[in-house]
């Protein structure tokens, strides 16, 4: 027990250290911005997973609490700035959190009366409702221009202006760590465990003294609070909040982040948030079809790795502990060429099609992977078909071997551990 607690503390200390050290390693402006985005994406994705992974509630409108947290934070910043109120910037995400919490209390009271599909539909409806309001209530949402604000006009503590991005990064990192720890602690409380029980079997939970509606409601409120904190940090980072933040796109995006990372594990949404943010920023530099890749990745994860990337990683943890990872190396290496072939085929197909459909005016000459070619050349299309065919054929041949190698190693690891 004691050792377990120390191990946890050590893990959190390591996470804090990594967050402090990251800007020293990746010191370019672009990477500090990206890491800032990752910070509040992690909070947002984890808050979403309090619903989906822990309590079994599929929400299509989680951006409502994120976005309203952002708007309230921006308004608060403006009021504080113009009134010269003595409020320092670091506490402002709390305004976002309280805004998220308040709206979660209001909307959650209605929507958590139902579970399952009905809950999902109500969340979609509320999402659309708030998105529609954001275009009508121009005073609050700022119309098409949104609400601009300035984070530097608040009370300065220790001469920190929060003008430079690096200072904002550390503010976001501190809140991210705090929220991660709080949300992790939540999973280890009586209510956190009852959330799991309600996810597993709501009927039975009712017969051991718990109102499933109340469990869902409290989880929903907690989730709204943390989403609001994430929105507040986003407002501080961008210094502008527009109505698109409460819309269906971020609501869908947070679902993708959580799901791709893996909803069954606490670390899953963290992986998803980091990966998706990195992909969104770096991929969009290379290709206009980046969101298509993200969508494809989602489909592949749902079909072939329903436990998400986090699940795939954790599958290998017992092997790592038993020192058996190298045993599955050869089998995985055999699977690599067909996977690379398939990936190349997908990229070629998407890029060539995207070029022909979207950038037709630029002519049919294009470049992929440092190779220039003509998008209308039958050779290219033949290559795509060939890569797909050969890739699928080879993958189907090697996959049973990969699966056997993994299971043999996993069994061996279990045998070693039980000895």
């Amino acid at each position, binding site marked *: 027990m004691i050792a377990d607690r120390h191990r946890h503390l050590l893990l959190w200390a390591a996470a804090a250290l990594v967050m402090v050290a990251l800007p020293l390693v990746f010191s370019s402006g672009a990477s500090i911005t990206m890491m800032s985005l990752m910070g509040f994406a992690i909070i947002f994705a984890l808050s979403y997973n309090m619903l989906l992974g822990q309590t079994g509630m599929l929400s299509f409108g989680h951006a409502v609490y994120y976005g309203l947290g952002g708007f309230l934070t921006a308004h608060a910043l403006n009021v504080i700035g113009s009134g010269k109120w003595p409020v320092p910037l670091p506490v402002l995400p709390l305004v976002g959190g309280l805004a998220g919490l308040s709206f979660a209390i209001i909307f959650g009271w209605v929507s958590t009366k139902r579970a399952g599909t009905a809950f999902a539909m109500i969340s979609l409806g509320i999402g659309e409702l708030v998105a529609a309001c954001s275009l009508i209530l121009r005073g609050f949402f700022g119309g098409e221009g949104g609400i601009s604000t300035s984070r530097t006009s608040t009370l300065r503590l220790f001469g920190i202006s929060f003008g430079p991005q690096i200072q904002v990064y550390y503010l976001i990192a501190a809140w991210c760590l705090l929220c991660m720890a709080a949300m992790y602690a939540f999973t280890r409380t009586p209510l956190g465990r009852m959330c799991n029980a309600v996810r597993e079997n709501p009927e039975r939970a009712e017969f*051991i003294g718990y109102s499933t509606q109340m469990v869902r409601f409290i989880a929903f409120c907690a989730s709204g609070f943390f989403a609001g904190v994430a929105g507040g940090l986003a407002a501080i980072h961008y210094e502008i909040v527009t109505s698109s933040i409460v819309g269906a796109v971020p609501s869908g995006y947070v679902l993708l982040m959580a799901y791709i990372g893996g909803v069954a594990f606490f670390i899953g949404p963290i992986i998803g948030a980091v990966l998706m943010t990195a992909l969104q920023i770096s991929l969009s530099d290379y290709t206009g079809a980046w969101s298509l890749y993200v969508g494809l990745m989602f489909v592949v994860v749902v079909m072939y790795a329903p436990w998400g990337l986090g699940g795939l990683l954790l599958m290998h943890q017992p092997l790592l502990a038993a020192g058996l990872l190298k045993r599955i190396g050869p089998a995985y290496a055999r699977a690599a060429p067909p996977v690379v072939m398939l990936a190349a085929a997908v990229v070629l197909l998407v890029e060539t099609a995207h070029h022909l459909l979207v950038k037709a005016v630029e002519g049919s000459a294009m470049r992929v992977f440092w190779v220039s070619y003509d998008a209308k050349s039958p050779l290219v299309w033949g290559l795509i078909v060939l890569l797909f065919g050969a890739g699928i054929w080879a993958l189907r041949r090697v996959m049973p071997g990969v699966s056997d190698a993994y299971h043999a190693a996993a069994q061996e690891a279990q045998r070693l551990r039980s000895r």
Partner: protein
Amino acid sequence: MSACALQLIDLHKSFGATPIIRGVNLDVHQGERHAIIGPNGAGKSTLFHLISGRFPVTTGQVKLNQEDVTGLAPYLINRRGLSRSFQVTNIFPRLTVFENIRCGVLWSLGYRYSFWHMIERAQDARERTEAILEQINLGSRRSVPAALLSYAEQRALEIGITIAGGAGVIMLDEPTAGMSRSETEHAVALIRKVSEGKTLVIVEHDMSVVFDLADRISVLVYGQVIATDTPAKIRANAAVQEAYLGSASAEAEHA
């Protein structure tokens, strides 16, 4: 006569126009083991659902320790001291055996909807869970996900969750259904042990279990209780023999 733990007063339940429970009156005494038997389709499970709050009552009253609980939600009835198991195993499949039981003890220990206690530090919840694991003999399986247990183990877990909250009235819906003879004997011993000092209401098809376990038996036929008495007198009751055993032998012919 001891006080009534559970009292049903002219209970009716219809699904649409179809009456399933047609005026049940039943007194279950404090501390007795009371079995409800009857042919298939007599309404035994429906009666359980009515008492435990899963189905709304059409007319009539359910009283738990003299308090009217008719129409209350299942969790409210549970908090007033009635806990039930299910005919079809109803557990938390992806949680471990230990977590399954611990979820069952939380409310009764006053943790309610707490998100300000750390569950690992809740000594009382852990000790209570350990004690129950010991009782249901699943201590060695504590860290196994409940879905991976054998059928008999799952049935034991089902009983464990039911008794975990320390309710005074325990209702078991066919706890030995689908078990082998030796598994049934274990289950009966377990039920006898865990219902010590409590009120037990049990629905059971296995007559040897019923006559072995019950202090009193009620016979439910077509939504009405035709007799309530001690096992010996029920055995000798002509109306029961005709209604229940007659249709049971008809069932045997069908099977």
